[in-house]
């Protein structure tokens, strides 16, 4: 696309958060938005993620964001004019310990108070939801039918294509190399392809957001943590209709509409090598979990494994809002849930930037909460 030296808003990062933010800004009438992406669209965390979407959260803020994101996803194909691959098979959360089940029920009470219709289910009911399930060692389950998954590639492309139709400029293979700051205000970015002056700069760089922030002299306590994941060949539908997930069991497993089963688990330690490498140990450990939980998968072939970065924060909650450098905004730190929260995050930040009241008051997600010690600890993460 044609290079513009001047923009109303420059967005760093072409994942779900960057493209959704660009789309909602354009939709709200901001004419000149530029997105720069160092690789290709959704080549970072978005395109590597487990694709889940849920409202079963343990903090009020994440519950509000999660259910608002579901509201968006449910009408997104029509809004963007391209399919997003939404599949609402629910999330079936599995607890293996009494205190874990108590925590899930505590989360459920919070969710129910916010209009999220999650519920506990028995083992028999869990087997109706997921017929292949072998979880005799489970203590209890919670389930929310509106949860599920969408296709991260298709969703991000859909946002980008819709944004481009509204006039957004997109530059792939364009790496941000600096933030222009003067008198405590950001006024543009430098890239390896040229400079762009902009009234507002938004950091949507996922696992690399802390490096981008540093370019403006802003410190955020984020880190990119490598998580591994794998996928099987397509098999008959109905093997795992919901997203099966357990925090103590350390797994999430779901079946894509075309039949492949995707599964992942959190790594031991917190690998921060930024290399997106893979290990045979993961494939072995993950397969053990998969085959134990869904015994009928033992004859299904694993075709591919890869890894991606969780853009972690110390409390597992996102960072959204302006920084000490005026006109420089963050939308990052989604801690492994950027794909599902990206649509609502893009919408509320865009609303703020055009001077409207955001659908959700997200002021508590300000990054200065860490300095103040006001952490928003999210218990429901793997």
């Amino acid at each position, binding site marked *: 696309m044609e290079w513009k030296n001047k923009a109303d808003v420059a967005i760093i990062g072409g994942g779900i958060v960057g493209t959704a933010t660009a789309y909602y800004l354009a939709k709200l009438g901001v004419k000149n938005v530029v997105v720069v992406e160092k690789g290709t669209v959704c080549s970072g965390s978005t395109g590597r993620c487990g694709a889940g979407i849920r409202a079963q959260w343990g903090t009020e803020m994440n519950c509000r964001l999660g259910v608002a994101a579901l509201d968006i996803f449910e009408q997104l194909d029509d809004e963007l004019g391209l399919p997003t691959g939404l599949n609402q098979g629910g999330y079936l959360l599995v607890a293996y310990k009494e205190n874990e089940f108590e925590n899930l029920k505590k989360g459920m009470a919070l969710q129910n108070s916010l209009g999220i219709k999650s519920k506990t289910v028995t083992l028999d009911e869990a087997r109706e939801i997921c017929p292949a399930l072998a979880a005799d060692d489970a203590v209890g389950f919670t389930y929310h039918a509106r949860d599920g998954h969408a296709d991260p590639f298709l969703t991000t492309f859909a946002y980008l294509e819709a944004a481009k139709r509204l006039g957004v400029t997109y530059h792939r293979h364009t790496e941000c190399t600096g933030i222009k700051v003067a008198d405590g205000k950001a006024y543009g970015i430098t890239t390896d392809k040229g400079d762009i002056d902009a009234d507002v700069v938004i950091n949507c760089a996922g696992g690399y957001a802390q490096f981008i922030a540093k370019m403006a002299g802003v410190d955020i306590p984020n880190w990119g943590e490598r998580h591994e994941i794998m996928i099987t060949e*397509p098999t008959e539908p109905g093997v795992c209709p919901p997203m099966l997930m357990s925090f103590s069991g350390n797994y999430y497993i779901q079946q894509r509409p075309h039949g492949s089963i995707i599964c992942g688990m959190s790594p031991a330690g917190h690998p921060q090598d930024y290399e997106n490498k893979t290990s045979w140990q993961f494939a072995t450990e993950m397969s053990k979990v998969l085959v*134990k939980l869904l015994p009928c998968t033992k004859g*299904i*072939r694993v*075709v591919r494994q890869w890894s991606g970065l969780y853009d972690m924060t110390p409390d597992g909650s996102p960072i959204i809002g302006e920084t000490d450098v005026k006109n420089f905004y963050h939308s990052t730190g989604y801690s492994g849930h950027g794909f599902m929260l990206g649509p609502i995050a893009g919408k509320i930040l865009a609303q703020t930037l055009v001077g409207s009241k955001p659908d959700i008051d997200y002021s508590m997600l300000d990054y200065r909460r860490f300095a103040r010690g006001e952490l928003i600890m999210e218990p429901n993460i793997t």
Partner: protein
Amino acid sequence: MSDKQEQVIVCRCEEITLGEIREWIDRGYDNVNELKRVLRVGMGPCQGRGCQDILLREISRRTGKPLDQVEPGTVRPAVKPIKAGLLASGGE
């Protein structure tokens, strides 16, 4: 270009046609990694072994880039599909 040729299946695993690949290259998704993400071409059990050469050639043709300058897609393990049960046994 005849309709018949457009309907040729290039990626047999994911059933992607030549026509679909050309359509998306023309929309600007003109490299293997982007086409893979938008169409799932090369993401099935054969991992692109059957279709990547054709894909590279089409990208070269439509963008005018010499074939040896079109980057192949990222290669990911496993080299061959392996049954989950066999992986779970640790190969024992």
